[in-house]
Each structure stands twice: as structure tokens, then as C-alpha cells.
């Protein structure tokens, strides 16, 4: 027998989640370009859309364009995009570092891995977006926090969608290798037209509206316009988005586990090149 009897490994360990979060925090702390990248693009977006809103607001219906619909949509779009990207970036760091084999051979469970990625998605989101919301207030007088409870609804629904997409993308990369890396950067842009970020869903043709209403962000951005233009908090839309998100998360987690199993069959977990 061994010198010390082996201790059973718990089915869920907060310590293992903490270990992985620590790994990503070490990485962020050690790399200022990574920190700058988190803030850079949201700031560029906010400034661009902020000035566009100023310009259009002077020549069109000020009720519509002066209410912050554009800049609010831009900030919430970044919540959606950054929540997925933050999730996927932490995952990709493991692939770039060729560390995935070490993690997969450790007692870390898939659920713990995903939870750590969720935590890091939130960390990256806050590091990237909080300074930008302050700048939006200072430069354009748009206070996203004035959305109050609506902001909490919007934020929750958007990050849930971002994580669901991030989970599927991670599974696809595990199964297909780094040749699928581009998905992590581009897949969310499909939500830009279909999620009706900058225009009402009624603009779309009928058949496309049906598809749009299958996506939680559509409900969020419709809700945002209702709140900033009509001053109405559409909790019905938020609850519908939440229900769809729960389904998406369950489906994406199941897809991730299936893709991991397929990767084990294909032998692609140790060979993660192109």
C-alpha cells in the first residue's frame, strides 16, 4: 500500500475552481497588454457610437436618438460580446500554452472548468467595461447605471447568452483543434444583425423576425429601447429571455460534454494543433 492512503476526490471542489481562477489571475496580472486589450476596444466602440449619437441626435428625432438608445445598445452589445470572448479567451489561453493536457489529466471536472471560465468572464467583463461606463458618463452624459433594475435584467440575460455560446465554441475547439479558433472571435457577430442590437425587430422581414425571437439578445435590446425611449421596463421580455437562456445553457453544456467525448474518440485532446 502507499505511504498515505489515497483520499477520494470530491465530485465538486470549490478549491479546484479557485485554482484555475488563480491561474488566470496570475496571467492577467503578469501581462499589461492583456489588461489594455480588455479596455481598449470597448472604449473605441463607445467613443464612436457616442459621437454618432450626438450627430444623429442633432438632425433627427431627438426623443429617439437623444435618449441614449445607441450608446446604451453599444454598451450592452459589449456585455454580450465580451462575456463570450472573456470566456473563450481564458479557454484559448490553455490551448496556446499547451496546458490542456495537464488540466485534463488533473482531477479538475468539466463543470469546474466551465465554472472557472464563467468567473473569469465576469472578471474580464468588469475590468473592461466599468471604466468605459464611467467614460460614457463623462463624455456623453449617458449613465448606464440609471437603467437600474433594467440593467440587472439586461446584464444577466446577456452574460448567460455569452456563456452559452462560449461553452459551445470551447467544445468545438477541443474537438476540432485550433483550426476552429476563429469561431471564438467571430461567432457572436451573428447576433449583431439577428439580435436587433441597433434597430427594432420590426425592421426585419417576417421570417427573420421568427428567428430573431429565438435569440435572448433580441428581447434584451427590445427591452432597452422600451426603457430608454418609452420609459417602460418590459419584465415580460426579460423573463422570456431568461427562460430561453436556461434552455441554451443546458443545451450548450450537453453539447460541450458530447464534444469532449467525441474528442476522446477522435484522439484530439492531446493533439490540438490545426
Amino acid at each position, binding site marked *: *500500500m*502507499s*505511504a*498515505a492512503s*489515497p*483520499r*477520494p*476526490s470530491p*465530485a465538486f*471542489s470549490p*478549491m*479546484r475552481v*479557485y*485554482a*484555475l481562477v*488563480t*491561474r488566470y489571475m*496570475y*496571467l492577467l496580472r*503578469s*501581462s499589461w497588454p492583456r489588461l489594455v486589450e480588455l479596455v481598449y476596444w470597448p472604449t473605441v466602440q463607445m467613443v464612436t457610437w457616442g459621437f454618432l449619437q450626438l450627430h444623429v441626435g442633432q438632425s433627427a428625432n431627438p426623443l429617439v436618438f437623444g435618449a441614449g438608445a445607441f450608446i446604451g445598445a453599444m454598451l450592452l452589445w459589449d456585455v454580450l460580446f465580451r462575456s463570450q470572448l472573456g470566456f473563450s479567451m481564458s479557454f484559448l*489561453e490553455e490551448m496556446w*500554452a*499547451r*496546458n*490542456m*493536457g*495537464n*488540466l*485534463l*489529466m*488533473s*482531477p*479538475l*471536472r468539466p463543470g469546474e472548468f466551465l465554472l472557472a471560465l464563467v468567473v473569469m468572464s465576469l472578471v474580464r467583463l468588469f475590468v473592461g467595461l466599468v471604466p468605459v461606463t464611467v467614460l460614457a458618463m463623462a463624455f456623453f452624459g449617458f449613465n448606464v447605471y440609471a437603467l437600474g433594475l433594467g440593467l440587472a435584467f439586461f446584464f444577466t440575460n446577456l452574460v448567460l447568452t455569452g456563456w452559452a455560446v462560449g461553452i459551445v465554441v470551447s467544445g468545438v475547439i477541443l474537438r476540432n483543434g485550433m483550426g476552429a479558433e476563429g469561431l471564438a472571435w467571430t461567432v457572436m457577430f451573428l447576433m449583431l444583425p439577428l439580435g436587433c442590437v441597433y434597430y427594432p425587430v420590426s425592421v426585419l422581414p417576417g421570417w427573420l423576425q421568427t428567428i430573431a425571437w429565438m435569440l435572448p439578445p433580441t428581447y434584451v435590446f427590445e427591452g432597452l429601447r422600451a426603457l430608454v425611449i418609452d420609459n417602460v421596463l418590459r419584465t415580460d421580455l426579460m423573463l422570456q429571455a431568461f427562460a430561453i437562456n436556461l434552455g441554451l445553457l443546458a443545451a450548450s453544456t450537453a453539447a460541450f460534454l458530447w464534444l469532449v*467525448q467525441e474528442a*476522446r*474518440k*477522435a*484522439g484530439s*485532446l*492531446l*493533439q490540438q494543433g490545426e
Partner: protein
Amino acid sequence: MTEPPAIAVQSLRKAYRKAVAVDGISFAVPRGAVVGLLGGNGAGKTTTIAMIMGLVLPTSGTARVFGHDMATDRQAVLHRMNFESPYVDMPHRLTVRQNLTVFGRLYGVPALKDKIAGLAADLDLTDILDRPSGQLSAGQKTRVALAKALINDPDLLLLDEPTASLDPDTADWVRTHIEDYRARRNAAILLASHNMAEVERLCDTVIIMKSGRIADEGTPADLLGRYGRETLEDVFLDVARGRGAAAEATP
């Protein structure tokens, strides 16, 4: 109660479409034994190890670790094993101490700071603990990888080319450490290596693979005697080039 062998491989086969990487092999690694897995490139060593780790699913057959089927029940035993492989790396931007801390927490190692200090002393890492892993020499990286592989005091250690790229002095030092670890923990070790002197020194049993099958196996002394050779390297070449054992070749 008798504990199952550290590794029990039974009729293990892995096929990728028409290519057969591992073709129905069976072997066991008892507790406390060091078994060498030899074979040329493409012989099936890495696929075999990957199936023992549970990272690749067999097409048929089983790979069990301490009685647990690694295809279906690997989580029950992962905390008792560890590995070192050239196919993986440690995050480069993290310091050695940070990397060992992360993996120590993943494995639930108690008194982790003391454990890291002990490993650093054993593996001569103390001076480089706070250096980023990406700035280390090849030899230092190998020692760090070994420290990671030993962080949880594994009962089963899978080593894939553990002394590749090391100078002779450092390689000898690492081998001594592996020998000490095995003696101290009664750990089972499966060693894949192309260094025949290393295999001869460390292994109780040697398995030679060719084209996905076990071409021969035995103790180093048995193999040398059977092939009438002075070194395992000559035995390896005989197997690789299709020359049978001397005993078989004799009419």
C-alpha cells in the same frame, strides 16, 4: 484486500478509420513496478499512454488504473496519478511557484507551501521558483514538469521521455530521483523512452511495441539473453528491423 494492479490493459485496440494505432495489446503494471514502453515512431506508445490516461477512448478492450476503467470512471482515480509528457507544457508567463501552486490546488495537496519547498529542494528548483516558466532552459523545464508530476505524490506515474533534452549529468540526476521516488512511495511507473540505457537502468520489465502490437516483452536481462545482445539498443533494432529473437532464429 488485494489492490488491483496499477495498470491493467486488456485486449486494448484503437483504430482511426482504417489506421490501427494500437492492435489488441494486453499487459499489467503491478504496484511498485517500473515498466518501460519502447517502440519506434508510430509504434503506438503515445496512443497507449493516452488511453491509460483516459484522454483517448479505446475502440475495444479496456485500460484500468487501480481497477477503474479509464474510459468510463477516470475521475475516481485521477488524483492518484500524474504524468509528464513532451506533448504538454506549463503556462509560460506564470512563475514556477505559481504553476506548482495552481496544480497543487487542483490536486488538493495539503500543506502546499511546504510541499513546493520540498520539491524545489529535491529537484534543485529553489533558485528559479520565482522565474517565469517560459524563461527556463530545457533542463530546468523538465525538472519543473517532473515537480508538477510529483506534486500529488502519485501512486502511478506516467513518464513520456522524461530525460529528453537533458545533459547527461542532469539526466542521471533525474533518473536517480525517479528511482528514489519509486522506492519511497512504492509507486508504479510506466516509462516511454528512446534512451535504452535509461530503460535498462530503471525498468523491471520492458514492453517493445511495433505497429500497434507488443512485439516482445520481458526483463532487460531476459531480452538481452533471448536476442543474444549486449545492449537493449541492439535488441530494439532487432525488433524494429524484423530480426527475431536468437532463440527463435536458431533452427
